[in-house]
Every structure is written in C-alpha cells, then in structure tokens.
C-alpha cells in the first residue's frame, strides 16, 4: 500500500489514493471501536444496494488503523456547486433526491439514531435543565428505522464522470427518523454560514418528502445539542441558542 498520494487531510485522519483504492489513515489516538464501527457501517450500507465505495480492508499501517475502500473518481457536489454557481439549484435538487433515496433504505442492524442522540445530549456540557428538556423532546419524537447518513452535506457526495452519484463517509450512519437527518443537514448549511442554501434545502426536502417544516424544526434543538459535543468554539454560540428552547406547558 503506497501512501504517497495524499488527497485530503482532516483534523485526525489523512486520506490517500493508491490506484483504485482509497486509504483513510486515522491518527494513532483515534478510538479503535469508532474506526471498526465506521467500517461496519459502511459494510452494512453496501448491503442496502446504495452506491457507495466498498470496504476492501481494515488494517494497521505503521501502527495506525486504516480503512481501505474503493476510490471513486469524480468531483464532490460541493466542488461542482462552487465551480458552477449558476447550476447550484440543480445540484441542490439532486442532493435532496440522493438523501431521500438513502432514507428509503432499511438496515436493521445499524445503530439507533435516538440512542445516539440521547448519548450525545448526556455527554455534552449542557446544563441539567437543557438536557432534561432535550431528552424529553427527543422522547416524544416518533421512532423510525430509516437509514440516515448523519453527516449528509455536498462534500460527501461524489459525482463520477459518468454522472453517477456516490455517497461517502458513513461514520455517522444510523437508523432513525429522516427528519432528524434533514435537520442535521440544515444545521450543517447554517453553520457554514450559507443561510440561503439552508432555507432552500429545507423547503426542497419538506416538499419532496411531504414533511411539515415544523416537524423537521422540532429536531433542530436536538441536532444542535448533539453537534455541540464536537465542541468547535466558533459554532458554540449558535448551537447553544438553538438548543436552549422549551416545550410548551
């Protein structure tokens, strides 16, 4: 395995290309179980028939855990949107369609979105009152079993030269309520400061999935709270504002 062609660097991992393979090498202190879980998630999603890079191998390279999967040739929707601003709406439309096609899938052994959210609300540094409100809110949400990507944003969708779409990065995949997944995407756009696209995305998602806006909105405090666990200081103020709401009494 050659690690000389680095194609991306993230805060705690590096991604290399070696021919038709893509090697994601994690930092040495990265949780082993998280890495194995990511590979397992990816394997489970493969079984749903969605177009995604296939896992080839989980291995250790120079003492670091790595996941080897198919390399997908192409550009991300993020890149395409930036390169062709006039076609952004068209890309966004396709982006939502892809997300809806994911939500149609079922994968009974995936982790539960609700459990994950509950864990994240508990493990953040939110005050007791907010945690209680959010736990209660989450408890009241309908329990579904749709496949949710969990980090669905345009940089995780690759369009190949044959115009086929591949979704990558399944580390956060769960099964649960699709509205939560949409709320997460809305939040990601908003955090990136692109409110106009966030709004456009939201209306598209609600229209195409025949979902009430309020229903997706109800998830926003929960996904905001779970995002705050990642603890980026520059995002914190907005996330806390979104999370500090109460249910009517």
């Amino acid at each position, binding site marked *: 395995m050659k690690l000389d062609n680095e194609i991306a660097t993230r805060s705690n991992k590096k991604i290399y290309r070696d021919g038709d393979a893509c090697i994601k090498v994690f930092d040495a202190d990265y949780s082993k179980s998280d890495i194995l879980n990511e590979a397992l998630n990816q394997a489970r999603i493969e079984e749903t028939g969605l177009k995604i890079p296939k896992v080839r191998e989980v291995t250790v390279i120079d003492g670091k855990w790595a996941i080897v999967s198919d390399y997908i040739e192409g550009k991300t929707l993020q890149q395409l949107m930036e390169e062709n601003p006039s076609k952004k709406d068209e890309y966004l439309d396709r982006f939502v369609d892809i997300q809806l096609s994911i939500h149609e899938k079922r994968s009974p052994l995936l982790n539960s979105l609700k459990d994950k959210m509950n864990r994240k609300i508990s493990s953040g540094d939110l005050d007791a009152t907010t945690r209680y409100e959010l736990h209660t809110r989450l408890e009241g949400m309908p329990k579904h079993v749709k496949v949710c990507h969990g980090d669905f944003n345009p940089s995780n969708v690759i369009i190949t030269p044959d115009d086929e779409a591949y979704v990558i990065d399944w580390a956060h995949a769960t099964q649960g309520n699709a509205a939560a997944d949409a709320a997460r995407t809305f939040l990601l756009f908003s955090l990136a400061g692109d409110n106009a696209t966030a709004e456009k995305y939201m209306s598209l998602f609600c229209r195409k999935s025949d979902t009430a806006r309020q229903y997706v909105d*109800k998830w926003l405090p929960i996904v905001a709270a779970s995002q705050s666990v990642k603890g980026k200081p520059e995002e914190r103020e907005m996330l806390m504002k979104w999370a500090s709401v109460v249910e009517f*009494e």
Partner: protein
Amino acid sequence: MKKNAYEIVDSVEKLEEALAKVREAQKQFATYTQEQVDKIFFAAATAANQARIPLAKMAVEETGMGVVEDKVIKNHFASEYIYNKFKDYKTCGVIEENKEFGIKKIAEPIGVIAAVIPTTNPTSTAIFKTLAALKTRNGIIISPHPRAKLSTIEAAKVVLEAAVEAGAPEGIIDWIDIPSLEMTNLLMREADIILATGGPGMVKAAYSSGKPALGVGAGNTPAIIDDTADILLAVNSIIHSKTFDNGMICASEQSVIVLDGVYKAVKKEFADRGCYFLKKDEIEKVRKTILINGALNAKIVGQKAATIAELAGVKVPEETKILIGEVESVDISEEFAHEKLSPVLAMYKAKDIDDAFAKAEQLIADGGYGHTSSIYLNTVTEQEKLDKFAARMKTCRILVNTPSSQGGIGDIYNFALNPSLTLGCGSWGGNSVSENVTIKNLINVKSVAERRENMLWFRTPSKVYIKKGCLPVALDELKNVMGKKRAFIVTDQFLYTNGHTKPITDKLDEMGIVHTTFFNVAPDPTLACAMEGTEQMRAFKPDTIIALGGGSAMDAAKIMWVMYEHPEVDFVDMAMRFMDIRKRIYTFPKMGEKAYFIAIPTSAGTGSEVTPFAVITDEKSGIKYPLADYELLPNMAIVDADFHMTAPKGLTSASGIDAVSHNLEALASVMATEYTDGLAIESLKNIFEYLPRCYDNGPNDPEAREKMANAATMAGMAFANAFLGVCHSMAHKLGAYHHIAHGVANALMLDQVLYFNAAEKPTKMGTFPQYDHPKTLAKYAKAARACGITGKDDEEVLDNFVKFLDEFKERIGIKPTIADYVPDEKKFLETLDEMSENAFDDQCTGANPRYPLISEIKQMYLNAYYGKNSKADRV
C-alpha cells in the same frame, strides 16, 4: 426551612428504593379513616398556606421566572381553595349508598402517584398534587424539573412534614432530588397513576409509560373581543391575566382577536393601560427572539415585557405590561401565533364574528387543542353567538368575560368550575380527562351491587266483560257513559256474511251510534289489508273501533288503530326486538287519543282481546312484524260465548290447543308471577275438561263453550304479562315456512319444549334475576298435579303429563308429528337451518327459562318431525 434529613434520590437504584418505601407507607395509609385523612389534609393545607411567601420567593429566585407576589397567589390558591372545595368530600370507605337499589360505592386509593411538576408553577403545582394525594390516601413521588427542583422539593417537604405531624405515615410523599428523564420515565412506569404537567413530550412519555395518566397538554388560548363586549372589562381582564406571573399560566391568553368595529377602541384601551404596540420592524425582532426555529426560547419564559424587548433589541418603557404584535397570519409559521409563556400577545383584526371564530380555531389547532378558549361579549343579548363559539372551539374550557389565567384554574371567576392546577385537555390534547383534574380522578370507586329482582306487573284491559249474552249490556256504556258517536267494526268476510256482526250493529243502531264495517280481513292479515282498513277509518273518523273475530281480525284492527292514530309510525321501528320491554329502544306512540278499542273474540284461543300483541305481515317482503306494547292493549274486551257457538271443529281444536300452549309457556316463563300462574293453571284445568266437549258437541254445549271462552281469555291474560317462550318461537317459524295453523304448530312442538325446559342441567339458563336456578320441572309438575296428573316424583308427573297431552291432542284431532303435516321431508330439511336460526331470534325466545342454542332448536324440530321423544332423543 429544612428540618429533617432525607435520603437523596439521585439514581435509578435510589428511586427504586424510594418507590418501595412510599409503597409501604401507602399500604398503611390505605387503612386510615376519613377522620384521620381529613385531619391530615387540614394540617397539610394549613402548613402549605403558611409557607406561601417563602416558597414563592424561592421559586422565583431559583427559576428566574415569574413574579413573587403572583406566585404567592398561586400557592395560596393551591392550599386554601383546594382545601375549601374538597374538605367535605368523602374519599374513604363508603361514599354513597342506595339500599333500595342495593348499590354501594366504596372509595379506595389508587396507590402511588407519579407527579411531574413543571418549572412554571413549581411550588403551587407541588402543593396541589401532594394535597390531593393526601386527601385520597395515595402515596406520591414527585419528579421536579431540574430548573425548579429545590423549590418544588421544598414545597413537598412542607406538606409532608405537616402531614406526618398530623399522623400520616412517614415517607408518604417523596421526590427525585436530581431529576433526569430516565428516572422520570422509570417513575411513570412504576407508579399506579401519573399526574403529568408538562409539555407535549412529557405528556407523550406519560402516555407511553403504560400507566393511566392524567396528563395535560399545551394551551394556546385565543381571546375574542366581540362588538358587543364591555371593552373596559375585556381589555383589563386580558391584561390582568396575561401579566399574571409574567404569563406563565398555561391557560393564559396568547392571542386576542378583535372585531373590526371595536378594534380602535380596544387598541386604545390596551395602550392607555401600559401595553406596548410593537412597530413593524420591532415585530420582526421580537419574532426572532421569542421563537428559535419554531421552538420557544427558554430565555423569555416568565420574563417581564421590558426584559424580552431588550433581548430583542427593542426599547420600551420599563413598566410596560405587555408587548403586543399586531399580526395577520394565524398559521403556525407566524411566531406570534404560538404559545409564548410570557407577556407577549398577538393581536388580530377580524372582519366579522365568523372570521374571528375561524382564526381562533386555527390558533387552537396550532398548539392548544383541548385546552382553553375565551370570548368577551354581551351574554344577555349574544347567547346564540356564544353557543356557536362553544360548538366550534375544540377546547375543554370555554371562558366568557373572564381572565383566562385566573379563570381556567377554577373557583375564582366561576364557582362551579373545580379549582385545579392540572387542567385536562380531553382526547383533543391526548388526555384521559377533559375537566379540571380533582381528587375524584385519584380514587378507585368500587361499586358493590347486590342482586335485585325486576319489578313485574299485571296489566289487562281496564274493562273485561264476561258472560254468555252480555254483548248488548257491555256496549250500552258506549252511549250512556262515554257518549261515543261513530263506531268502526273490523271483522272477516265469513263472520260478516254469516251475520255475526248483526248483534253489534243492532245495538249500535238502537243507541243511535253511526257505524260502518270493514270485513276484508284475511287469515295472517297483511299490511295492505290494514292500510285499506285504515283508509276507510280515516274517511269515517270513528271514535270507537270494534274488532270482532279470531286473532287475525283483532290483530288487523289493532294495526289499523295504530296507523289511524299515528300515521307517521314505521313498522320496522315498532317491531324492533327487545330483551326487556321496559328498556326497549323504541318508545311506542300513545294510543287511544282518537278511538276507543273494543275486542270481541269469536273463537277460544288467541287471547288477543287481552294481550298487548299484534302480528302483521308485509305482503311485499313477506316479513312478519310482531308488535308488542301495552299501548296495544284493547280498552275493553267482551267475552261472550254466543259468538263462539258455531265455531267449526278444526278451529275449535286448533285455537284450544293454542291456549294450552299459552298457559304452559306463561307458567314456564322467567317473568311468571303468582298472578299469571293462577290464571294459567285454572285455565289449563278448564281446557282439559271442556275442550273435548266443545270439539264433540259444537253448538250444542253452551256450558263447555263458555268455559272455553273464559279459559282462552285467562290464558291470554297470563301470557300478556308473563310472555311466551321457545315453543311459540318455533311454532311461528314452522307455521310461516310450512303453512301449519298456529295452534297446531304449537301442539307439535309442545312435548319437545316441555322436556327441554324441564332439564335440570340445561346448557344455558335464561337470564333474569328472578330465575335463579333451573326450576321449570317443578313448575310443570305443580301445574300437572293441579290438573289431576300423578306420579311418584316430578319427573314421573311430567312423563305422565306428556302422555296425557299426547292423548289429549289425538282426542281433538291433532296429529302427532310434523311429518304428518309436512310430508315433503326434503323440503323440511332444506328449510331447517334457516328456520332454526329465525326461531332462535324470535321475540318469544327471550322469556324462555332455558336459553336455547340454535343447534338445540334444530334438534327439537327434527325430533318433532320424526316423533322422537324417548329419553335418549331429548334435547
């Protein structure tokens, strides 16, 4: 304030322990008397009341929400009003008794209550729920809100300590010290009932716990100000309510909908009283402050108007009472249309009252289903408008000219609305209760119901005239007493052409009573025939109807009587089957308003002259309508044997044996009384003695004819009150399917039915309180002995009785089996299943002492067909 040390409940394990302790304490508490409980209730209410100010201060300090002075009122309300309202309520032991009806209501505690307490009313709700628990001998565990846990727990301690001091078991009230949803859920799962006050998530959690929940939902109260409202009262009431505890009562007004005509005046009054109308750009700023992504901003709840304005970057005077946004949309996407739990109010202009109602409906749909709505109008002139409002609002409280915060919790602005801090929202709000929750929702009521027997009756025509040759005397009073003028006679062609109506018409002529005769009644009278008679009746307008004939003429006349008096009636309704004639769904129309009804039988058997029954056949559908109601009782029956003298042999025996079956069924009926038994036995004796003589001697035995005439009428009286049984059920269908004369059909089934009813181990008994065990064998034996039948025991008497009946039937020319009358066996077998099921559903089945299975009816038919009656064959 803390006096005692309590175990800290901060984990699931600790909560399990706490639950066990409260449960133990509650077991002891459940044995307390009303006196002990009332003493505890008094002491606890007193202590809570005395602590009202420190608790209010503590709540505001801890939560940073609301107004101390208003929380004092809430604490005061939760102790004083609740105590006052419920102090005399019985909650222990027998709370209600009615000896006559044999019913006793006993109150029992439910067990352990899980109480979820909100941040908005942390002390008053705790006081309310703990006091209610004490009054009902329940244990209670409180799950406070993390933001208000100290004050909620303090309130619970105050109540607990006073209660224990007054004798309550130690630990009857407990709480979670460090609340988490996990523990709240566990508590709700483990408790016996849930009193959940909280948002939709909490209410949902309560309902999904699997335990009965008195959860309450969110409010979004709209207040309409009508053109006719007292504006001064309306506006100031709304301000008073909306500012109360900074708008944190869930019943508080969230929107005000003002009719166009008074909009200006209302706006001026709001402004004059210190409310601030937000300008266009300020409205937008406040919108983004009160709601975040459609959810209520925690920071504004229970804050002053000025504080909220400041958060929004709007400058308003410090003493501003309410921030008012004049908005147009009632859609959920409008932030102002939501519940705001703060002194922020939406104001809408309605072009008319219907527009106002439509807006209010939408606001309720936005988030206040089942809670509260409010209207201001002139109640003297606008009741109709109010009724319409009440009809349209899907809310469980509809308040009129009342500040909704203080009004919704009851007993302050209306003294019949129960005081409560837990307001039920009905099924619209996902609740199991729709009223203000009170102590009555926290007890189990046991009903101790002793067996009681049904009242029975004996009803018969008010005049029954009896004697051979009595007709002219009996009719005399038509003129002399009643002053009747027009008589309508109903009879059949045979009787008419043979001059049987002549004695009647002669007497009527003599009295100068105008009369006409309808003589077109055929056997098994049809609806068409009855209609024809009714037409003539309508044209003739009689004040007297005289029915002359056998069952057919008398039944047809009864039906004509009904249609003449009540042209609007529907036979399907009137013929509806009933289990108990007193509880029947259909109320029979009042009879006798137009015409007096006289029945004169010409054969001895049907009894229709004294019964409340009539059968009519719809010739188009073939459906038989059996009508039964005491309204159908004739007013007068004339039993004059002169009319019976020439009855032919076949008619004499068929009607005579019909009377035998009437007697035997009335005797066996679950509704039999000594009155009907006496008549039936005497009637039976006479029939056995005189029917053969009538049969043999025809017109030459006036004594036998008269005995038979009376015996048949007596049998009629017996079954008019005791009703019939399965023999008639089967005979009705046998007659209908195979054209066998009614009396003969009964005769064919009699043996089977006697053994069927006499069974000491029946498959199923008839359902009637008086019929407490299978006892028909004894009844039959008693009647048989009275008729001279003997035997060493009841069973042998019955055997001999059946033998006697068989001989008796033969003696009067009735053949022994159905096969004798229905030689086509194949046809009989083809109709058998349908016939059995229809016989089962016949009205007569209901009074039978043995409840028949359809298969049993079928077997009886088969036995009767083939003449099988050996012990082994019997059903």
